[in-house]
């Protein structure tokens, strides 16, 4: 008998409330609304959110925020709703009284995108005055997006109390947004609103302004259109900056993929078709590292990449040395045969990984410091791309320094320039060869760690980069690291400026054709060695 139950329950609630807040409460709209959560029907939930948020009840905030992160449990049989606190303790959503445990029949109230939006809106008006600055900022933002009239008073209230500058502006914009859509707002208010939003000048502002509808006063409509115009023009400028950034980021990826090849192929003249697989091995190393960390020491997850980088270098490098000792070294002076052997090798490595890890993609997560993005002016810069760019340059510099200043680097250059002479001067050429190849492979492995952050970790990973890598190295000029650097960034930027015009596919084709024609002009690449040294 639910009715009787609820009746008794209400009297109980009454007494409790008398104690708790010393003000009378009845099984009013709030309780009914809360009960609606248990219907597991999206539109009911939507209503409930509205009512609860508007009720001004102390429980509103805990309920809605619980709803947002799936802590609001509802029992379809008893129509009872519970809030499970972050601390694991639960309370009855309708009454706020603590309950020992949530019945097993209860399940989390489900959301869909529409509901998530109303939840945000609700929380927006609820958290406008939260002590937490970030929360306030977010609240203001979500009100700006939802701009529901009901939020006007809270916003103005908050605006009056607000001290922090950035939050103040955010609130101002939120207020403007609301006014702009408020039917009975005065023309003056609306004009001010337009000005405020224009000042904001980003794509959300654009969205808002282009959405104000037709029932606006002429002057406001006019102001809005001009505002849209100016925002768009400023955004147009920014978009070319954005393209440049995308180009650099793509270039860094190309460079990272190619730089190892610049050593094995450029310096040693080994046409290493298994280079891509070295990259892949690096990526899988990252995967393994993260697996271990996930299962053993979850706390370390953010450091997983830092651990993976040296490991990937060692694993890929080690395999590289192994390959050099067992295959490549028999093929010096006949680069072509290295092409054949390494091609066969790449097949073997791919299939090996496929049998070990399965053919499907493996999940490699982004550590927190590599996920998300930040706004620089009007362009979005994603952290993973930014880090990859820095990482690439770091690798490049270190490599360069290594070649220039370390003994090994010196020996490498000696051997590659004149093997016989180097040997006669007592350099263990075979050792140097092995190490050089290992170095190249190791760097490919490192590249794999970075690429695992933006691409599939699958047995085919390497294949997708090998051709581009060769293009970069050849375009830059074989045997010249700087050439590789310039080549990579040139191709990257060119590609990204072509893409909006020609589309992704035609853009890539255009780049390839350009490379072909360029090689006609500079048959030995961008940074070719001149003089008799090359010929004789």
């Amino acid at each position: 008998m639910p009715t009787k139950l609820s009746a008794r329950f209400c009297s109980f609630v009454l007494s409790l409330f008398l104690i708790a807040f010393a003000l009378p409460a009845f099984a009013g709209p709030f309780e009914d609304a809360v009960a609606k959560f248990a219907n597991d029907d999206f539109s009911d939930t939507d209503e409930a959110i509205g009512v609860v948020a508007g009720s001004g009840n102390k429980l509103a905030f805990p309920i809605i925020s619980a709803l947002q992160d799936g802590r609001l449990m509802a029992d379809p049989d008893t129509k009872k709703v519970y809030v499970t606190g972050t601390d694991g303790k639960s309370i009855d959503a309708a009454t706020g009284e603590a309950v020992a445990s949530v019945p097993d029949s209860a399940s989390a109230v489900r959301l869909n995108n529409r509901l998530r939006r109303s939840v945000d809106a609700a929380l927006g008006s609820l958290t406008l005055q939260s002590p937490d600055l970030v929360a306030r900022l977010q609240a203001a933002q979500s009100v700006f997006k939802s701009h529901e009239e009901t939020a006007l008073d809270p916003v103005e209230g908050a605006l009056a109390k607000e001290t922090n500058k950035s939050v103040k502006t955010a609130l101002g914009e939120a207020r403007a947004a609301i006014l702009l859509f408020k039917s009975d707002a005065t023309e003056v208010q609306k004009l001010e609103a337009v000005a405020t939003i224009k000042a904001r000048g980003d794509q959300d502002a654009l969205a808002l302004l282009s959405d104000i509808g037709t029932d606006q006063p002429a002057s406001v409509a006019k102001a809005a259109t001009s505002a849209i115009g100016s925002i768009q023009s400023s955004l147009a400028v920014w978009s070319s900056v954005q393209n440049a950034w995308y180009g650099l980021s793509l270039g860094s990826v190309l460079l990272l993929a190619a730089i190892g090849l610049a050593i094995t192929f450029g310096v040693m003249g080994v046409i290493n078709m298994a280079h891509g697989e070295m990259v892949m091995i690096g990526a899988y190393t990252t995967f393994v590292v993260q697996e271990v960390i996930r299962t053993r020491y979850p706390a370390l997850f953010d450091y997983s990449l830092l651990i993976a980088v040296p490991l990937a270098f060692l694993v890929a490098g080690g395999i590289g040395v192994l390959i050099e000792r067992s295959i490549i070294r028999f093929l010096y002076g006949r680069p072509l045969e290295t092409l054949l052997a390494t091609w066969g090798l790449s097949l073997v490595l791919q299939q090996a990984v496929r049998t070990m890890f399965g053919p499907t993609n493996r999940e490699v997560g982004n550590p927190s410091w590599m996920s998300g993005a930040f706004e620089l002016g009007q362009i979005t810069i994603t952290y993973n791309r930014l880090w990859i760019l820095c990482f690439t340059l770091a690798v490049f510099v270190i490599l360069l320094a290594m070649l220039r200043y370390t003994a090994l680097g010196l020996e490498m250059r000696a051997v590659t320039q004149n093997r016989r002479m180097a040997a006669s001067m007592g350099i263990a050429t075979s050792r140097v060869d092995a190490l050089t190849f290992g170095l190249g492979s190791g760097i490919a492995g490192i590249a794999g760690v970075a690429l695992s952050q933006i691409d599939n970790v699958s047995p085919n990973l390497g294949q997708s980069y090998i051709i581009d890598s060769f293009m970069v190295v050849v375009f830059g000029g074989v045997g010249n690291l700087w050439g590789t650097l310039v080549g990579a960034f040139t191709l990257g930027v060119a590609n990204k400026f072509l893409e909006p015009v020609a589309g992704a596919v035609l853009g890539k084709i255009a780049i390839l054709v350009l490379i072909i024609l360029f090689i006609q002009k500079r048959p030995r690449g961008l940074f070719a060695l001149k003089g008799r040294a090359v010929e004789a």
Partner: protein
Amino acid sequence: MTPHMLTRSLDRGATIFLLVVAALGVLIPLSNLLLPAGSFLQVPTYLVALWGKYVCYAILALSIDLIWGYCGILSLGHGAFFALGGYAMGMYLMRQIGTRGVYGNPILPDFMVFLNYSKLPWTWYGFDMFWFAALMVLFVPGLLAFCFGWLAFRSRVTGVYLSIITQAMTYALLLAFFRNDFGFGGNNGLTDFKDILGFNVQAEGTRAALFALSCLALILAFLICRSVVSSKLGKVLIAIRDAESRSRFLGYRVESYKLFVFTLSACMAGVAGALYVPQVGIINPSEFAPGNSIEAVIWVAVGGRGTLVGAALGAIVVNYAKTFFTSGVLAPYWLFMLGALFILVTLLLPKGIVGTFSAWREQARERRPAATTASAAAEDGITEPKMAE
């Protein structure tokens, strides 16, 4: 490998090879058509088609060996010419479908109908006539090779650089043909062919005929290659391969020689592709994939670079191995086998099967030092900057 040694040991081999091909070209179709199905000596149709494919690959291998083995031009994009020839033939076959397409459109192939093409793109004009298609099979790859070669050889792009830009070429074509807007069926390519010159492509008779034709083509291609390499021009090619600038100082226009042989080889590849398509029943952009071109080069290496028989044999051996490994219990491991094969051959038989074989024969016959390893690097056609020429 010493040429006169080759010419001796090979001519004998060559003749045996030619006669074997000829014999198969006759016997396999006959056994397939005349003998009762399932009888011990009867070659089932699927094997006829299969071997037809191998033979086409053998022609492709020959065309690669001609430029790489004898002129040191390593093309990592020869699949492109093969595929272009294939597309030319495919387009003819598509036009032959006529009203038998699923939409029954007399002019437009099916894929055009459901992508709402209003009219036939100009690129497809004329392909309803076999002679035109046949012409294009030679002309399109030939033209591409000519333009590409004219640019590349004139500006003396050599070695790795040439190899990589040939790869760029085929890669660009791959992407282009993948685009549906390009008007060649996109990723699905051209398929579901009905008949060729009025004969049903599925019919056993047609298959047998196509097989015999492929064998004939292989023989012709082989004879052409042989007449080229055994002419004085062949000597010049080898001279260019071994010491390009020396030949220049002797007054040879290296670029024209390269251009000639490159274009010739492209045309041969085109023919191979054209015969390939009706037998496998589909042509699609993946034929442009750089990987395919590289594998084709590997066939040549496995068989024996600079020996025509070797090239053809290599193609057949490798592809037979592929077929064999990709079915049955071995299926999950076939890539290991293939990869291992490539590695072992390069390590143990650097001259390829035929090359090593004839080298043994040679050593057995007369103890005389073979070509010094010093020239090996040059022979590879690829040379790093520091050791160019």
